[in-house]
């Protein structure tokens, strides 16, 4: 069984996040505003190496770009 999203380099969680975002956006106006608040994230993260904290980055952006680069490497 091969999934289209898997070969595109998305993880299952990312796939779910995108699917749920689509569902939320297609709701009616009043319900949509409440539902979209549940999909917000404002996380930052930093990688550590040898006890030093690295650069702090926005998590959502990093995830999207990380997936994109994975997709590029797997397709080529």
């Amino acid at each position, binding site marked *: 069984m091969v999934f289209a999203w898997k070969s595109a380099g998305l993880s299952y969680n990312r796939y*779910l996040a995108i699917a749920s975002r689509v569902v939320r956006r297609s709701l009616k106006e009043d319900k949509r505003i409440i539902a979209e608040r*549940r999909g917000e*994230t404002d996380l930052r993260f930093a990688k*550590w190496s040898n006890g030093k904290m690295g650069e702090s980055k926005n*998590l959502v952006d990093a995830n999207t770009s990380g997936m994109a680069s994975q997709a590029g490497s797997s397709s080529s």
Partner: protein
Amino acid sequence: MLSRAARPALRAGAVAAAIPARTAQNAATYATLREIEGRLKSIRNIEKITKTMKIVASTKLTRAQRAMTDAQKYGSASNEVYDAAETKALESEGKKPLYVICSSDKGLCGGVHSGLSRWVRRTIPQGSADLVIIGEKARSQLGRTNGNDIVLNFAGIGKNVPTFADAQAIADQIVQLQTQYSGIKILYNKFVNATSYEPTIIDAFSEEAIAASPNFSAFEVDEELIPNMREYALANSLYWALAEGHACEISARRNAMDNASKNAGEMIGKYQILYNRTRQAVITGELVEIITGATASADM
């Protein structure tokens, strides 16, 4: 910030007993009177702030608790599979476990964060496991002692009730880690009741552990689907841990602020009495001076 502001006031409380002795010799009694007044005012302001924070925490608490009960169902439902399959964490063959510590960014909530850090320092010897830290507070506490074990840290949690999107994003980033771990353990504060909480572990198993569990064949799941399930279960467990940790933090903050307001109230009482006494003493002193002056001039 507040805690730092409150500290001089606390110290002032200890000094308070020494003040009257000094005023007796000191000619400038008015200055100390004004000093006491200033301190009273600052303590009153602190009390106001802590009271407001308590009210804010109380209103947030109901929401946080509701989110917690929902998330608990979520997490336990997803762990049902592992219970039925009797999945056990594999004994590591040279692989480290990964600990995910769910704290948050904000302080002023008693020992919530330091409880987690202390648990980590006590139970995990340095170098034996890698750490992923969620929240600034635990990061600054553990960064000093276990800095070498930290591989990732997340910030920006704890402003609101954690969302599932938060948990998913974190799970994604953890899954992307290059190192192979024997298993992921999520450390969070379990909500026992409104006043007590204890650091607890949720297991998130590795793919091999899931595949090796004795009753797993009963589910008739394709091998290829296991990574997906594992990722999803990790997000579920993280969401559970984050939501419960959040509820603990809010309730701990409510209690801490309640105590702080109570202490401030006590201090205000003490200072008020001290203030009144000093004022009386000043008035009496002045009266004595006037009367002695009057009698002396009457005799002339």
